[in-house]
């Protein structure tokens, strides 16, 4: 596997990976139930809702109640998947998740769409850039941010068999499909490319940009050790340390505030085990705004060229 093997022709939204997978899960396991707070179409949950009306709970615009209900449904052996936007899946219901799900150790799968800047035109009220941090801080919580349709499909299938609360983060834009639809292991990084000069670790939509950046860096004579960390918690410490002990420097790329997200999670691993220079490609502690997804990524410093520049900078710091 290398970046040269990745030349996707198809595009799809990651939320559709969730919607298609939960429909399959409904057929495979009758313990699977789904709840949605008036965003069934946006979450691509129509298939499940139509096929399994008895196991689909429309809660209305009442996310706090939805999270509590999901916790309650686990008592009796159900495996509830909640669906709403990432903003309303985290910040709006943080205390409900904290007490009724995480602290109570309930087997709820919190599935969150429209995360990050790539939500686009709706603007900052809906573009949450703090959710990974919020969810990472909760004990007992697993946090997963898949990179494309296939990986979101595979992650949705995988979390059903994982006992414990999970936060699954995906999004709205149509995005290149390049990951495996079948091989996915929670907590295990995907090694996309072997290189010796710089490690790039990316999550979510930024993984595709990291692939493009790695291709450009290679043209400049810089080889990239490229890792996709889809599971931000628990993080694949071994994969990170293997890579940085080879390259001696790292760039992290995420569609999230530079505080609280993947970058800090990686820094915690390296600083306590094998300190290396790190550059953060992330939103610089600001809210977003309305615009087209790719234009927003560019404006907020999350473009392919930003990853390339960060790699050059961290290489310079390495000396």
């Amino acid at each position: 596997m290398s970046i040269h093997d990745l030349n996707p022709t198809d595009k799809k939204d990651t939320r559709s990976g969730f919607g298609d997978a939960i429909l399959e899960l409904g057929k495979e396991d009758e313990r699977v139930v789904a709840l949605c707070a008036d965003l069934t179409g946006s979450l691509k949950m129509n298939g499940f809702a139509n096929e399994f009306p008895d196991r689909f709970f429309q809660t209305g615009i009442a996310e706090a109640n939805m999270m509590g209900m999901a916790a309650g449904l686990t008592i009796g052996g159900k495996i509830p998947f909640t669906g709403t936007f990432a903003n309303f899946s985290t910040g709006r219901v943080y205390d409900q998740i904290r007490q009724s799900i995480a602290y109570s150790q309930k087997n709820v799968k919190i599935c969150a769409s429209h995360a990050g800047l790539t939500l686009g035109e709706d603007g900052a009220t809906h573009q949450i850039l703090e959710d990974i941090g919020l969810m990472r801080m909760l004990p007992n919580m697993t946090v997963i941010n898949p990179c494309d349709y296939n990986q979101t499909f595979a992650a949705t299938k995988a979390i059903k068999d994982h006992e414990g609360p999970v936060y699954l983060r995906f999004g709205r834009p149509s995005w290149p499909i390049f990951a495996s639809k079948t091989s996915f292991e929670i907590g295990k990084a995907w090694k996309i490319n072997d290189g010796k000069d710089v490690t790039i670790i990316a999550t979510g939509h930024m993984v595709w940009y990291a692939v493009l950046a790695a291709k450009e860096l290679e043209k400049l004579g810089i080889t990239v050790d490229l890792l996709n960390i889809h599971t931000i918690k628990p993080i694949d410490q071994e994969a990170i340390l293997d890579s940085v002990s080879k390259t001696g420097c790292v760039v992290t790329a995420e569609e999230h505030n530079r505080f609280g997200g993947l970058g800090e999670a990686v820094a915690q691993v390296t600083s306590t085990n094998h300190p290396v220079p790190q550059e953060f490609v992330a939103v610089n502690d600001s809210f977003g705004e309305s615009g087209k997804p790719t234009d927003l990524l560019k404006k907020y410093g999350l473009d392919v060229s930003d990853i390339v520049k960060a790699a050059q900078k961290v290489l310079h710091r390495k000396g």
Partner: protein
Amino acid sequence: MAEIDFLTKRSSQVRRDIVRMVHSCYSGHPGGSLGCADFFVALYGEMMSFDSKNFEMDGKDEDLFFLSNGHISPVWYSALARSGYFPIEELATFRQIDSRLQGHPTTAEHLPGIRMASGSLGQGLSVAIGAALAKKLNNDDHLIYTLHGDGELQEGQIWEAAMYAPHHKVDNLIASIDYNSRQIDGDVDDVLSLGNLRAKWEAFGWDVLETNGNNMAELVGTLKKAKGMTGNGKPIVIIMTTEMGQGVDFMMGSHKWHGVAPNDEQLAQALSQLAETEGDY
């Protein structure tokens, strides 16, 4: 009336447990706990079917109870212990380090009888609805009971849940409200009035019953009536008038004993008013 006599005697013992528990750690919430002692004794001693010796989280083929106002944990712990969920001696560990009897109830310590953490208010009705829906999916015709504080009804999530349950015909659910009219900062009517509580619940689509929560015969009668109303397409709520501090004269008639423990002298005074009917822990 042998049954009422037994329940009334148990209430007295539970009240002794409550004041001794909060006294020994010098913290906790005696007021609401004392007020709800009769309710817990009626629920666990008469109403619910459960297997206290083989506690399982899923609670299949059992009635389930969720305490939404988790701060009155002393009364729940006493009722659970007196119902055989765990040794009554363990009540002595309440709020101590390494105890399963945390200040607010939790599943984290695996105390038999507890299925949900509570303490941050307003969350229990939603959880209960989820558990009630799971029972329906499992073709399990047992019931879900809850208790909420009256002050707790100021939380918005309660009304999200209140709207959901009738719309979706969650009719295997009996919610109860501890209507003692007091909260930490004072009288509920002064802090944030609940207005016409019966009318509010009726407007949301619930069947509403009212009862004196400190009259065992009336309370048991109301709970049985509520049970008889289940399965008819509507959730049921019982507005249960209680006296905060019930059973200990100097704790009654004020909000001041909401979250304050008695000193040695006050403990002795309280215990002198509560008969030891089943033996102290």
